[in-house]
């Protein structure tokens, strides 16, 4: 918000996805500009998480293209080009950090080792460089004092902050957040949101799937409402959340807010 938006860094075009016969994404396009924070909202089953996972090919889209920098990766539904495409997919992933609902920290590694694993072995940084950068990002999420702890000894909020630091350590162009607070106890959500808001204000490029409407108002530049695998409404948060044009959006927000804005905490850990 405070940093003016730059050029388009990630462009997804006409992403479609079938799970068996189910058409869960029916053609979603999204161009994200540098320093922009885009928030995807919608009820469960709307396709928002699947779309996010298609952006870094954790899910293989059935149709569509994801482009980033000089990379342009087409959907490969028959896995015919898996081999030739593998390098491109890995390069794309190195430039897109992902934060998961269930944190997915590596339990057999300390906090610091979680953060330096990929910079060391994927980016090829020296140990000194990797540790220095990991310490900087751990400090940013206020977890530096726990650098030698193992994940099992951290609270959910602390785990998620470490997971954010781990993603930042790869210095990605874009950060993807997949319901980062949905698995957290209510009293731990705040500490993660604070970190995310700080990142957004400092100009990180972020795509966030979440039910945290307060975060959307505070930090998002753009909100997309998804339903049935399509973008139904799109615009600045104050317009989409406070003055939605589409009936579907109005209905969703009404129902969502009447439920006391409690995030649907599906499959807790």
């Amino acid at each position, binding site marked *: 918000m405070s940093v003016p938006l730059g050029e388009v860094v990630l462009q997804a075009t006409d992403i479609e996805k079938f799970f068996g016969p189910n058409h869960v994404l029916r053609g979603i396009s999204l161009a994200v500009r540098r320093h922009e924070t885009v928030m995807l909202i919608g009820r469960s089953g709307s396709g928002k998480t699947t779309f996010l996972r298609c952006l870094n090919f954790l899910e293989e889209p059935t149709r569509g293209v994801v482009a980033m920098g000089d990379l342009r990766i087409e959907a490969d539904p028959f896995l015919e080009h898996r081999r030739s495409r593998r390098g491109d997919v890995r390069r794309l992933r190195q430039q897109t950090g992902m934060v998961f609902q269930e944190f*997915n920290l590596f339990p057999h590694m300390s906090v610091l080792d979680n953060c330096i694993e990929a910079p060391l072995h994927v980016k090829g940084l020296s140990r000194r460089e990797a540790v220095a950068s990991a310490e900087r990002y751990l400090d940013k999420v206020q977890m530096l004092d726990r650098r030698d702890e193992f994940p*099992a000894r951290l609270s959910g909020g602390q785990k998620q902050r470490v*997971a954010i630091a781990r993603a930042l350590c790869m210095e990605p162009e874009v950060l993807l957040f997949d319901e980062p607070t949905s698995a957290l106890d209510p009293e731990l959500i705040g500490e993660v949101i604070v970190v995310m808001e700080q990142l957004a204000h400092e100009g990180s490029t972020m795509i966030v799937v979440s039910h945290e409407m307060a975060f959307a108002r505070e930090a998002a530049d753009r909100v997309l409402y998804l339903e049935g695998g399509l973008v139904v409404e799109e615009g600045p948060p104050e317009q989409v959340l406070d003055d939605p044009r589409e009936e579907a959006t109005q209905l969703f927000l009404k129902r969502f807010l009447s439920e006391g804005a409690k995030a649907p905490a599906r499959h807790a850990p």
Partner: protein
Amino acid sequence: MTASTDPIVARIVRADERRRLRFRAVFAITWAVVIGAFVLWLLNINRFDPAFIAEQMPYILGGAPLTILISIASISLAVVLAVLGALGRLSRIAPVYALASLYVSVVRGTPLILQIIFVFVALPQLVPQASKVPAIILGVIALGFNYGAYMTEIFRAGIQAVPPGQREAALALGMSDRRVMFRIVLPQAVRIVTPAMGNEFIAMIKDSALVYVIGVQELLWRARTVGSANFRGLEMLLLAAAVYWILTIILSFFQERLEQRMARGDR
């Protein structure tokens, strides 16, 4: 919740403790009575010769280190084969999957004792050089191959028990498939299967006795040889049985401790 000072609390704690102690005492007494009665009976029949046991003890016990050595060597070979087998059984490359499955199917579908005899008797017919290989090594190969097949399935289950989110997180960081497997998935799978590996090792101690049929001079071979030469089969077999039993009790103790630590551990 505050701790109550009601005296009944202390009395309940003491009663619980007494009950636990009584249970353990009865347990120990039952064992002592049964085993003691059996020993007394043996000592009172004149066909049983305890002096012979004492005399042969050093020689029979000399087989125990060999038994342990064979077990360690075989389990090590088995672990290597099991990791390869498990990766094969999880491979999406058809021939690799087929080979791993064939290995598991053949080894699990035939008797261990046949495999041991096969390596000793039939292998030299196929590969003449095998006749020069010491029996102990042939025995280790057969045991390792057999256990490798069973442990392949344990490792496969262990790898599959690692949550899929671990793999996804690693892939999302841009790691290669190989690195994901060896740095993220396998280390966690090893933790998951470690208690089961303990069980396999204990089972191996006992199954290693089977290599006596190809003349490896381990515990059972010594007991059988000395026993039949002197018509003292009962004494020697009882001695060998006692040694195996004590070995497995000791190992079970450590295995239980390991299991407890793993259950607690930094997962």
